[in-house]
């Protein structure tokens, strides 16, 4: 705990300072609260409005978890397939990158036209934003396996499957976790965007309702909720990383 305080006081101080400046300037310049509410107002709304929006949060969390899990599985399977079949990788890698150039905002309404207002188009959107960082990081992790260790395994008589399971897969884990961290935060965004399209619950819905009725304070509550959710997902991934990768020397890629 002491360590956390020691490492965390600088960023915390910056954030607190930022809020103080924000609070003071909104009273000092008399900014109307429909334009930019003061942090204190946002806090009040956040506390008082809890019964009105907590079901939205719950719904977004559900959507994110489902979408993220499917995205992970798809991303990992794509990565393994591309890695084990180099020809396929050559053929499909560019397509995979192209898939990320389609603006989600444009694609999302199309998905609603094709799949209706149910879970399906939303999960597709989240999967689409999630799978890419995971697939790319996993493929890179597999490919960067040290040639020396591969030689060793080959000369020791290991089969292709053994080389993959015992060498390439564990070797790719740190890289894979970098991808997971990016995907975890993207997946919350993906969930919120997909809720804009048409849903009856979720932070995205709450946000649209708030902004169309000029409840800027609620918009900010939604923004902070999204940030907190992203942080939570990120923390979950970091704890999983610590659980899975115990062997890493201290100070090397000890991301925080």
């Amino acid at each position, binding site marked *: 705990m002491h360590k956390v305080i020691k490492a965390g006081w600088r960023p915390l101080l910056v954030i607190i300072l930022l809020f103080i400046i924000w609070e003071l300037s909104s009273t000092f310049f008399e900014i109307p609260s429909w334009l930019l509410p003061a942090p204190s107002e946002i806090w009040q709304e956040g506390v008082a409005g809890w019964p009105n929006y907590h079901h939205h949060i719950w719904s977004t969390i559900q959507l994110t978890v489902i979408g993220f899990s499917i995205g992970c599985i798809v991303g990992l399977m794509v990565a393994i397939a591309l890695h084990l079949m180099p020809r396929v990788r050559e053929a499909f890698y560019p397509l995979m990158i192209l898939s990320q150039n389609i603006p989600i905002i444009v694609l999302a309404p199309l998905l609603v036209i094709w799949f209706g207002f149910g879970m399906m188009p939303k999960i597709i959107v989240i999967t689409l934003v999630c799978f890419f960082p995971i697939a790319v990081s996993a493929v890179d992790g597999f490919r960067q396996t040290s040639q020396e260790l591969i030689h*060793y395994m080959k000369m020791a008589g290991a089969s292709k499957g053994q080389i993959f399971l015992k060498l390439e897969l564990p070797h790719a884990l740190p890289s894979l976790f970098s991808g997971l961290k990016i995907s975890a935060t993207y997946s919350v965004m993906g969930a919120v965007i997909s809720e804009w399209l048409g849903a009856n619950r979720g932070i995205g819905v709450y946000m649209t309702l708030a902004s169309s009725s000029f409840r800027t304070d609620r918009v900010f509550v939604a923004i902070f909720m999204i940030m907190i959710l992203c942080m939570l997902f990120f923390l979950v991934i970091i704890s999983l990383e610590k659980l899975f990768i115990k062997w890493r*020397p201290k100070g090397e890629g000890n991301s925080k």
Partner: protein
Amino acid sequence: MSQLIVENIRKSFHKKTVLDDISFTVEDGEFVSLLGPSGSGKSTLFHLIGGLYEPDSGDFYLDGKKITGKRGSISYTPQSPSLFPWRTVLKNIMLGSELFGKPDEQEARVMLEKAGLGGYENAYPHQLSGGMRQRVAFVRSLLSPQSFICLDEPFSALDELTRLEMQKWLLAIWGQNRRSVLFITHSIEEAIFLSDRIIVLSSNPATLKREFKIPFPRPREEDILLTEEFLKWKKEIYQELKVLQ
């Protein structure tokens, strides 16, 4: 029981001949060193024995069976220890037997104890010193199901003092269960101290130059490093290598 016969091996890469008509034999329980300048294709020879590539011509026989281009017939330790960083020492040394489905944890623990690595079972490679990592790598070779061991300059990255320590350690461990060993080195002293026989290779392309039978009795102590006879051998081999250049 393992005897390796290397027969008329030739190999070239991009029209450049690396190995030219190499033939020799390693008898059962014998410790043979391949001595030659750096870049003389010694490692290539190991890769060929290990089946990583096939020679252009010539064959390898292990106990009379042809193993040319066949992987998994020998136990190999590369120049760097090549330990898996995510495996503990114990898991690392069991890797070789794990590939063939019968890891014996008890045997591995006993072996670690014998190798002076007791207490490090659960350490990760990055927590060990360079010399210790090499020990682990060698114990891994000993525990592999293949009985013929190929060591590729295992001590070249170590400092002089650790090196001597490791050579003594290697001799002690090897003395306990005399496997056939083919050892690559570019250090004359190391070759004399460790081997029963030294094969001198020339470079560009590597050809078999001369063989020396080293008569020092075993077990060997480090005192022999300073004897007249040791120096005589060193001089003779040195001259042979000098002629090559």
